[in-house]
């Protein structure tokens, strides 16, 4: 029982991070109809920037304080992501308005290549470390309740907390600020939004910026857990079933979907994996999403598609 709970918690923690990447997908898809395959590359790029700035900036400025260095690096990396968002809108999206979904998807793959190439050539292709002082060693709790106690990973816990805070902030941003409301208007109906004077181009830049920040936070968390390295770009593939499960246009869907996928894949790997050879979690989550799709083609919270003739 104790082990089941541990697996469950492990799944939820992993799921929280998937949610974060999925959130990036959903934000961009909602506002611009682009299925952004470059999200993974953005995570990598942001994390690389953060990791390197955390070393470079204190070096340039002669700062000795690790915390200050990290904050500056975070801000600088955030700024860089804003610049990336602006450039993407300027050079790519603006020229691809009203193209088909597949074309846009391919364009984002192109962006992904560029970001990967650029990121590794500017920042190097070694494994870099982001040290934001996350606790690494586990703690045992509830040793009285469960036999052998419950092993909780403090690092995961902190990471999930950060992710939850970010999600909360984003929700506030969308509900309470005028920019957030404009974003939602655009998501609902491009033309209507344009006709009441919301500038689409600016909205796109903003939404890519937000996605960039989400990528940065995801990158910092993953990077501090695993080290910043090229493979971070592959997290995009892990987050795809999440968006499908949750619905491409739904923020709550991305969060809940992330948790479901996280828990589903960990439980399947731990309990089902040993019987059929292991290594099943990646396809299992896709199958989970697929089976789900067969019952609800628009995802958990996606908008229902009605055919009109």
């Amino acid at each position, binding site marked *: 029982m104790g*082990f089941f709970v541990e697996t469950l918690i492990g799944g939820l923690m992993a799921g929280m991070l998937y949610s974060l990447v999925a959130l990036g997908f959903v934000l961009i898809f909602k506002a611009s109809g682009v299925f952004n395959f470059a999200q993974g590359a953005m995570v990598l790029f942001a994390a690389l920037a953060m990791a390197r700035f955390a070393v470079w900036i204190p070096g340039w400025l002669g700062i000795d304080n690790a915390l200050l260095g990290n904050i500056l690096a975070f801000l600088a990396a955030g700024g860089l992501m804003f610049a990336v968002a602006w450039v993407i809108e300027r050079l790519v999206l603006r020229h691809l308005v009203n193209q088909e979904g597949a074309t846009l998807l391919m364009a984002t793959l192109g962006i992904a290549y560029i970001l990967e190439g650029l990121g590794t050539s500017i920042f190097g292709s*070694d494994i870099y470390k982001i040290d934001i002082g996350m606790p690494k*060693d586990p703690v045992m709790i509830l040793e009285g309740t469960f036999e052998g106690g419950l092993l909780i990973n403090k690092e995961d816990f902190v990471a999930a907390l950060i992710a939850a805070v970010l999600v909360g902030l984003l929700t506030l941003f969308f509900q309470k600020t005028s920019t957030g409301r404009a974003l939602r208007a655009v998501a609902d109906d491009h033309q209507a939004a344009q006709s009441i004077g919301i500038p689409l181009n600016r909205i796109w830049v903003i939404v890519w910026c937000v996605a960039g920040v989400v990528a940065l936070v995801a990158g910092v968390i993953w990077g501090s857990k695993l080290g910043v390295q*090229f493979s971070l770009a592959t*997290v995009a593939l892990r987050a795809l079933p999440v968006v499908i499960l949750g619905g491409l246009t739904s923020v709550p869907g991305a969060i809940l979907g992330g948790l479901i996928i996280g828990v589903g894949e960990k439980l399947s790997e731990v309990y089902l994996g040993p019987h059929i*050879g*292991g290594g099943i979690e990646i396809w299992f989550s896709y199958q989970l999403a697929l089976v789900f799709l067969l019952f609800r083609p628009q995802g958990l919270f996606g908008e229902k598609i009605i055919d009109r003739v």
Partner: protein
Amino acid sequence: MKPRKLARAGIFAGAFLASLASASTALAQAKEQFFPVLVYRTGAYAPNGSQWANGYVDYLKLSNAKGGINGVRISFEECETAYATDRGVECYERLKGKNGGATVFQPLSTGVTFALTEKAPVDKIPLITAGYGRSESQNGAVFTWNFPLLGTYWVGADVAIQHIAKKEGGFGKLKGKKIALVYHDSPYGKEPIPVLQELGKTHGFEVQLLPVAHPGVEQKATWLQIRQQKPDYVLLWGWGVMNSTSLREAQSTGYPREKMIGVWWAGAEPDVKDVAEGAKGYSALTLQHGAEPNSKVVKDMLEQVYAKGQGTGPKDEVGQVLYMRGLLSAMLAVEGVRKAQERYGKGKVMSGEQVRWGLENLNLDQKTLDAMGFAGVMRPVQTSCLDHMGSSWVRVHTWNGKKWEFTSDWYQADEKTLRPMVMLASSKYAEEKKLKPRTPEECKK
């Protein structure tokens, strides 16, 4: 098409043709022994791949600095494979005929090795896979062109079990023990499985298989299973970022690092340096050498190559584990050429076929090695037509939080277990390919 577009297309096509032409009309330069270098300096495995490549290239430079191979200068060219098989094949095709023909290929990828194993015999170019590749290719009678010098994965698996047995106090103590193999889910990671299973049967321990999907950054479920099953030892058969991830997960699930043993591809600085204290106590096999910053060859390197500003990589990485692996791999290839020259003419450029003879008759005794600056780094290697591995000396080193330290004596693989397996697997291969294994008489030629 607009004229401008046409012109643009034309320029592009022209440039492309020109570059192809320069690629295919090889500049046959006399007196240069050409070493193609397949590397991966990008992608998921770049941190490990670059270090190896730096060591490899640096040694070639060092050899030139020392006057080449009996006066024959070495030329080389890198080609990026990104650890992908098809790109590796393209690189092979591109470089095999260049500059008078490739001497030897070392792809540093099990996947590419498998693909090139089919091609090398046709092109008559030997393939050195020091510490990786197909384990059964040790049998030179069947795998005429493959040279898994110094050790194979099967050697690694066998020695790892020997090491565990020694720690436990004898093979008898292995009975009832549980040993988990956390492996990269690819031909590379799967290679040790048959040996472990065989040994498990003999000594009565249980083998638990835990595959990790490429590139290996998602291991939570794996380590949850380890926490549940509580294996007595964990063997780590990873590459690249997978290794450090394993160590981090071990730390966060509280699995003792002292009970973890990595293969020699999971025992270098990039794997542990960012985990630092968290990886303390973790051991890994070595392919003879460990990190050797104090060896003579490294000092030579710093003096004769880096001091002149010709070093390939960062200076502080010279002498690290994977750097040394690359350096050793290059050294073996160079010595193969040198040996070939003994028979086919000193100071001449050797063909692939001649180099193969050299590699097959390699005999580096301790005196020679010491003279070359490998004292304390390597033990003797002697190959033969039937044994393309040459030696199976392995030590274990342990990460103390700051650097690798040797913590065991020398081991040697148990021939009684491995030889029959090698013979069985290689004869199956020969049968599939309808190859006739070489007889000892043919070897003498």
